[in-house]
């Protein structure tokens, strides 16, 4: 990505993706079974979520109805993968952004435990903080008190963002509705009408943001942070922290669905999954047991759209020096958690 900077403000942002669009090239022409088996091998960060989306899409296209137990098992796999992904960010990347040491040992423990009490204990000790109760983020006032006092790197990064630049990367870009099924249906219509929709997806004609802030916008503390700072990097970091707590606490509230299938037509179907980074949709067209067309609309495509949340949020950001500018851009990018490596270029106008 390239930020044009006039010495005091960002005057323009260009985001160019060099990712190969592999899904259709690798999967078209294969049998459905081959395609479903290949998908998790192709994607490193969210292989299980990708596998679930692929299976649901292919089943929807074939007109198969899956029972509630299988869907529930798949949702469990999606949820535990999402927790691991968030932990990787919060234990390795967020400490660096906060000027603290990464905690690979805790992450290794969490990866070996995968789920359950051991992961809960790691989140409690390393993210929430040993001295804080799980309910600390339940309302705006106690969330703010947690932020003032907690010693974890996650709290430190959010606190620093709030103190230094609370409205960093705030944009007017809409949040994608938290109803994955409804959004997936609309995406199905859009994919049919627009052959390149997945490269720059839109919601009601405009870019939209997906991810933790979109899902957690109604949570009282997240809503309070967003009311003060806008749909900003700070609000996204807060939403990710609050969401992780809600996912692993022992008295977890009833959970929203995180995966589903949408039949489109005979031979065509969608699978949707709410991943750590946002809504992931796989769309498949099948004829005679063979994949004819395969498209993936991934969270990064929404959030790093050329006019999406990152590009809009960075326009106009004030920075007195190039070092400060780079630091702010990295924080804004990390708040949206891209699933690919990225490079920041600064061009001085």
């Amino acid at each position, binding site marked *: 990505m390239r930020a044009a900077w006039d010495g005091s403000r960002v005057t323009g942002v260009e985001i160019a993706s060099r990712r190969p669009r592999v899904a259709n090239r690798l999967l078209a022409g294969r049998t459905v079974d081959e395609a479903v088996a290949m998908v998790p091998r192709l994607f490193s960060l969210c292989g299980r979520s990708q596998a679930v989306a692929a299976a649901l899409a292919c089943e929807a296209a074939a007109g198969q109805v899956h029972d509630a137990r299988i869907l529930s098992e798949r949702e469990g796999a999606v949820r535990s993968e999402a927790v691991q992904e968030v932990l990787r960010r919060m234990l*390795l990347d967020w400490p660096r952004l906060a000027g603290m040491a990464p905690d690979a040992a805790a992450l290794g423990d969490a990866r070996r435990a995968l789920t359950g009490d051991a992961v809960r204990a790691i989140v409690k000790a390393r993210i929430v903080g040993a001295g804080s109760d799980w309910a600390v983020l339940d309302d705006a006032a106690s969330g703010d008190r947690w932020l003032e006092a907690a010693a974890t790197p996650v709290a430190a990064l959010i606190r620093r963002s709030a103190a230094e630049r609370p409205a960093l990367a705030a944009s007017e870009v809409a949040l994608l509705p938290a109803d994955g099924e409804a959004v997936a249906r609309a995406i199905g219509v859009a994919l049919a009408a627009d052959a390149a929709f997945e490269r720059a997806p839109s919601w009601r004609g405009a870019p939209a943001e997906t991810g933790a802030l979109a899902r957690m916008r109604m949570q009282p503390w997240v809503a309070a942070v967003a009311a003060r700072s806008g749909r900003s990097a700070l609000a996204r970091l807060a939403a990710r922290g609050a969401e992780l707590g809600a996912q692993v606490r022992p008295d977890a509230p009833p959970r929203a669905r995180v995966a589903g299938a949408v039949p489109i037509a005979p031979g065509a179907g969608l699978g949707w999954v709410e991943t750590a980074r946002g809504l992931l949709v796989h769309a498949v067209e099948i004829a005679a047991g063979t994949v004819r067309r395969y498209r993936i609309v991934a969270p990064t495509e929404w959030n790093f759209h050329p006019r999406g949340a990152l590009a809009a949020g960075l326009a106009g950001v004030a920075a007195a020096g190039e070092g400060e500018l780079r630091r702010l851009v990295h924080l804004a990018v990390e708040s949206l958690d891209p699933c690919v490596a990225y490079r920041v270029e600064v061009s001085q106008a």
Partner: protein
Amino acid sequence: MCLAVPVLVVKRHDGEDAIIDAGGVRKQVSLALVPEAREGDYVIVHVGYAIGRLDPDEALKTLALFAGMEPAA
């Protein structure tokens, strides 16, 4: 989406660091998250950390898939 391109562990140093070979480019990464990885293993790397160790047959199949792909238009 991040592609899972397998890379070869070329040399394991004492401690957690290792040199990997990604299509001819050598880099240092941390094996802290996959301490069981040995020289000759294939791993998936993300931002300086190996995050998963692969069955060698699977890794070679995946590499063959990517090798058969034309560059993106």
